[in-house]
């Protein structure tokens, strides 16, 4: 293996591992003896020291680890603090409305109503603190129940769930009738 290839292999391994890797394991994976391997890594460390590099390789008690340079700390703080855009998409609103009216409700029931997997919208709503876990259903697998939060009530300016606008049961009956008529029409021979 050429020296440059060896450097590439070591770089790739240290990157993937993330943590400190002992020299003997590195050497075995690269198919080299430990001395050669150590020499190559020391050489790489010099290269990383250049000013156009944000990462470096450090030696820790005979093991090597890839990490960012200390001078990069400020920039990393910044990226973590760049505000993400939060949008309440139709998918989220729909899921929220189901949880609001059917709470406490399991994810499976939400998925049944929506007709599609709903992990993502439920997780997002929990992240936004509009929805929270509310115990577990006493059923096989003891699935998590979801309910709306106090933050939800506050945001909509209501004091309790009883203040949610009522869904008229007659309306639901009407939908049922309409739907049945439509299906009947399609089936007429």
């Amino acid at each position, binding site marked *: 293996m050429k020296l440059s290839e060896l450097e590439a292999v070591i770089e*790739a391994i240290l*990157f*993937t591992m*993330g943590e400190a890797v002992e020299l003997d394991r590195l050497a075995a994976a690269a198919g080299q003896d430990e001395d050669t391997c150590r020499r190559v890594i020391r050489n790489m460390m010099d290269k990383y020291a250049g000013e156009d590099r944000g990462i470096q390789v450090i030696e820790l008690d005979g093991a090597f680890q890839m*990490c960012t340079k200390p001078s990069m*700390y400020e920039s*990393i*703080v910044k990226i*973590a*603090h760049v*505000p*993400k855009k*939060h*949008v*309440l998409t139709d998918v989220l*609103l*729909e899921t*929220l*409305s*189901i949880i*609001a*009216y059917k709470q406490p409700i399991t994810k499976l029931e939400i998925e049944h*109503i*929506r*007709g599609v997997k709903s992990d993502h919208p439920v997780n997002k709503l929990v*992240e*936004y*603190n*509009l929805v929270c876990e509310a115990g577990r259903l006493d059923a096989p697998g003891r699935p998590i129940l979801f309910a709306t939060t106090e*933050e939800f009530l506050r*945001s*909509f300016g*209501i004091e309790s769930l009883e203040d*949610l*606008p009522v*869904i008229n049961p007659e*309306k*639901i009956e009407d*939908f*049922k009738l309409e*739907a*049945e008529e*439509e*299906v009947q029409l399609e*089936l007429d*021979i």
Partner: protein
Amino acid sequence: MSISVKLEAFDGPLDLLLHLIEKNKIDIFDIPIVEITRQYMEIISQMETKDMDIMSDFLLMAATLLRIKSKMLLPAEVNEEGEEEDPRAELVERLLEYKTYKYASYELKDLQVDAARLLYKEPTIPDEIADYHEEVDIAELLGDVTLAKLQNIFRSVMKKQIDKIDPIRSKFGRIEKEQISLPERMAYIEEYAREHHRFNFRRLLEEQADKMMVIVSFLGILELMKVGRLKIVQENIFDDIWVTYAEQPQTA
């Protein structure tokens, strides 16, 4: 020809049709519909699946094939431009579209193999940075969403859910496979025809008007017609179809 196939082995009726077309080395633009329909029917009549969802999709295609087959026997229809319409055209288009995506899926499969050789790294964000929890401005997030809007959304979701319930399909669970077996239905129709001698196709369906029964009955009648047990007369398009029992088997 003896065919023993599990229907589940095919991704769907189009997949099965493509399989037959390839196996017989047929030009997709000139499908010998009689033979293909025969092979298709043979396979689905031997199917072992009890899954009504799978079966109904395959039966629907059977009905389409039979419709094309019967249209091929009639004088060609002429379209607005005065050209003869090929009853197979729509099916060919669907098969080609399906085949296109099937082909694309092989390309994707190759791409996936290559892409799997790239490896990624878990985030290693320092704890004190990761712990920074950005406050989500809920008021801004909710924007102009009001309780009334939320209620409307919920209503439309529930309406959709009710729409989705197909009163026929939702009762499938209760239908035993035997109740719609083609040979049994054929025997019933033949018996019914012997009794009534001449009857209206619509009459036959009145008692058992669910979708599956309509399809199976239709298939049964076509099969009986093919073997010469029944004669079918329809004076004009959309008129009632009259079925007559043939005492002596005729040559089809």
